[in-house]
């Protein structure tokens, strides 16, 4: 069954990301996701970017469904089910949060609940998400093209930060290749890590096997995985599965 919620407010965050605020009585934890159905168009998974009584999805324009979502107005309705999956596990360790692109949407509610420094990364400065959301916090910026902050990839900035700081855990969400690099860094340096993964998802409830990586279902066993499982995921950053379930190089 779907619940129908009304969009209260829409904020344009970047040229490709909009935040849609709504009210809903469910109590998600950071890292969990919902399925959004736009009747007659598509249904897709979306992580929650604000988790209070007033909730929000921050949606990047990537395909037909999200294009339709971006065309909606305040007062329009969304059909949702969820929350689903396992979110982040909050650990009492010195934390570094690393969000790439729209991955910041998933990390943001966790960052607000915890202490720790933040890396916000994007291809270019216009795509930096939630740059001003976190108060009294050390926020580092990285852009691939150098238009703001560190010039280069997020993991390169992280390696520098690790030289000067004693972080014990990395919480991350972003492009799979970025997370693969961070996992490798965490393994190499003996740091803890949790990553929120994304794969092509159909059912969202753990039965269709579309989003599985090495036998782990992103929708039910994840989307956030801890280090012991991430280490086992040999396909992560290397192979994915297409809509027909074929294993193909990433």
């Amino acid at each position, binding site marked *: *069954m*779907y619940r*129908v919620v009304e969009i209260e407010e829409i904020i344009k965050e970047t040229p490709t990301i909009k935040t849609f605020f709504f009210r809903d009585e469910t109590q998600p934890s950071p890292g969990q996701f919902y*399925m959004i*159905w736009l*009747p*007659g168009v*598509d*249904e*897709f998974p979306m992580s929650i970017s604000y988790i209070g009584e007033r909730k929000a999805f921050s949606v990047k324009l990537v395909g037909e469904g999200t294009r339709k979502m971006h065309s909606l107005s305040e007062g329009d*309705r969304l*059909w949702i*089910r969820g929350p689903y999956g396992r979110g982040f596990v909050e650990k009492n360790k010195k934390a570094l949060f690393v969000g790439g692109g729209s991955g910041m949407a998933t990390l943001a509610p966790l960052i607000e609940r915890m202490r720790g420094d933040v890396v916000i990364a994007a291809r270019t400065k216009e795509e930096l998400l939630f740059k001003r959301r976190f108060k009294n916090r050390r926020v580092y910026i990285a852009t691939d093209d150098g238009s703001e902050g560190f010039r280069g990839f997020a993991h390169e900035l992280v390696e520098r930060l690790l030289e000067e700081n004693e972080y014990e855990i990395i919480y991350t969400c972003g492009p799979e290749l970025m997370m693969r690099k961070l996992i490798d860094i965490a393994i190499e340096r003996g740091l803890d890590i949790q990553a929120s993964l994304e794969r092509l998802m*159909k*059912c*969202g*409830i*753990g*039965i*269709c*096997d*579309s989003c*599985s990586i*090495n*036998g*782990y*279902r992103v929708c039910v066993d994840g989307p956030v995985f801890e280090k012991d499982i991430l280490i086992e995921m040999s396909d992560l950053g290397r192979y994915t*599965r*297409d*809509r*027909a*379930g*074929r*294993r193909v190089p990433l």
Partner: protein
Amino acid sequence: MLSVAINDLRFRNPLLLASGILDESGESMLQVIKHGAGGVVTKSIGMEPREGYENPVIYELSYGLLNAIGLANPGIENYGEEIKIAKRGGVPVIGSVFGKDAEEFAYLARKMEEYGVDAVELNLSCPHARGYGMEIGVDAALVEEIVKEVKRKVNIPVWAKLTPNTHNIVEIAKAASDSDALVLINTVRAMAIDIEAKLPVLSNIFGGLSGPCIKPIGIRAVYEVYREVEKPIVGVGGIIDARDVIEYIMAGASAVEIGTAIYLRGIHVFSEIASEMEDWMKKHGYEKIEELVGIAQVR
């Protein structure tokens, strides 16, 4: 205690993973085996890669699930590696296949045999794919032809999975009686409408209903067919706990397949049901589950 045989195929327990659930990739099947399944049936594999339907493909109900995944699968030519991985689990792997005619079924079954499966299951019953599954499976003559042709082409056991979406399942079961076992039932053709959207929920409109609400239909099918056709039966439909399994076995099933319960209880459901069954058997003085097959039949 729970070990069962279907023909010459031995299972450590009668709880098999049903086709279509967590069985597209070999590694997912391994997880299911690790959590106690006695055997696994693969996702239904066809001649070509197939993407399946657009979302929504699933709808959660308080009494079950409605789905129309649309026979998404990587295609038979890409499936050998997944079988190889699943076989590492050390329990029988049954390859499910769907084709449009006897020739396709026979080709697919041959390939599955080459890949090393222990049996093939013919999907004559998917309720939501044009030209496949149930559209073939309600035609007794066609069912007979397909089963005969596959039997001619392979040496491994052939199971026929039949649809409840027919007025006469016994007639179809008789038509499939050249097979080595009958699998009863697949999902029940159904649909749902969202009254706020004023639209059908599934992108394909029609889907298959599974879960607790269809168990009495499955029990009835197994009971009816057991009386009329002398073939081992694998019962499927709405099994959530040990009591459901025992009910199917008493109706005449030698083993069962479980799917929706993974959603309702989690992937641990296989080992949990197995120990629930052992408790029940000890309490009621049974040593072998095989003693219970068909004992509720009223003659």
